[in-house]
């Protein structure tokens, strides 16, 4: 592979994208920051970041037509990675915004963290990856401890969609994956080498898939 995969990073003005974009570029991706659907055309993968409120995020995604970019990518098997709130948006709904539909790519809901500890969880936490998860690693905790900032967490209906879990005064879902759609509750772009390694694994999977697609006769 001479050129890295083309990744559309969706910009709906809910978070600063600088670190995520630079991390992907450092790992060899060609990044297009997409404020509108046209800028995501032809991307090999879609990154959905996000910090803030579920309701506001869904409204902005819909207003800009970017919700269709994510669902369209998922429908055609283009890999999608949601980060933090971007992961939560992949589900059907959230306790943070009752009645507001999510993107509905991972069946289930988002619920407030069930814990007797301080909320939001702000800090580092090791993730137990499900064996075989393409995003995950079964290496030691120094290779799979990531930075979290959140008050809510995903609860997929199907346990098979849970790619990784962590514990914060009780277990919670740290990563989801269903086909080419994946999400992580933590911030890989803020998780030092462990986070960069995860993004690297995702880009490798994207590159493999992209190569596969071009080899397949249409």
């Amino acid at each position: 592979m001479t050129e890295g995969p083309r990744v559309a990073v969706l910009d709906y003005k809910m978070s600063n994208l600088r670190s995520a974009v630079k991390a992907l570029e450092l790992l060899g991706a060609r990044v297009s920051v997409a404020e509108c659907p046209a800028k995501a055309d032809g991307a090999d993968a879609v990154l959905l970041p996000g910090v803030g409120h579920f309701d506001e995020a869904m409204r902005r995604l819909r207003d800009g037509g970017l919700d269709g970019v994510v669902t369209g990518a998922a429908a055609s098997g283009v890999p999608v990675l949601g980060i933090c709130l971007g992961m939560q948006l992949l589900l059907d709904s959230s306790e943070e915004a009752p009645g507001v539909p999510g993107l509905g790519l991972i069946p289930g809901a988002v619920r407030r963290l069930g814990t007797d500890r301080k909320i939001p969880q702000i800090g580092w936490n090791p993730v137990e990856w499900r064996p075989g998860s393409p995003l995950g690693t079964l290496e030691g905790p120094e290779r799979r401890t990531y930075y979290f900032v959140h008050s809510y967490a995903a609860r997929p209906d199907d346990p098979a969609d849970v790619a990784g879990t962590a514990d914060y005064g009780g277990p919670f879902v740290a990563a989801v994956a269903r086909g080419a759609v994946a999400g992580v509750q933590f911030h890989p772009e803020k998780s030092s080498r462990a986070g960069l390694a995860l993004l690297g694994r995702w880009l490798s999977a994207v590159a493999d898939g992209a190569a596969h697609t071009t080899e397949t006769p249409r």
Partner: protein
Amino acid sequence: MIRVIPCLDVNRGRVVKGVNFVDLRDAGDPVELASTYDREGADELVFLDITASHEGRGTIVDLARRTAEQVFIPFTIGGGIRSDDDMYAVLEAGADKVAVNSAALRDPGLVERCAARFGSQCVVVAIDAKAVEGGEGWEVFLNGGRVPAGRDAVEWAAEAAQRGAGEILLTSMDRDGTKDGFDTALLATVSRRVGVPVIASGGAGTLEHFAAAVTDGHADAVLAASVFHDGVYSVAQVKDAMAAGGVAVRPIDDEELRI
């Protein structure tokens, strides 16, 4: 896991202390120093802008931008943040959090407005506290600890959290610079009172002090400046000592990233 946070003092975009690292190409470059701390296992960084002049202040926004592009751990910018717009400028540049101190005391509504606009997780309220002489409790000081604010530190911490602060950065003025250890009584009192994480600051001198801030002071994170900058201890030594003291810390990955 308890976070270990080196704090870097920055003046006009240059690190004021912290030149005791070997192998730095430019010891005064805060981004290079930040990158070094990341490699050493720091969980987070705080940049404290001590630039006095107004014209020098644009440098902190540039610092936030360059750090976000090159250092992949969370970082906070503090010092001289006076308004919602100051806060927006550094967050927009890529800072994860902003610390407000005097401005929040003068205008507590600033905490509420910024929490509503950017989210509580971005808003750190920094409190400089000093034991009341001949009395009980701790009082808040303004302007780097020179001017008493006429407020009880524990009450102010509680109010700040209630107004939307996501974290409290609690500095003991009595201990700052003494190397006598963190003020664990102050930390424990504030930590019991607020429902948000408390960052211990001021007084780190020995390796044992860091675990004590957590076991006795119930801190959620420990911050230090001079012990790291002067090369007294590395982040790894501090983390090893904390782990030995029964405190959970993020294990350090000391192998180079293979990309």
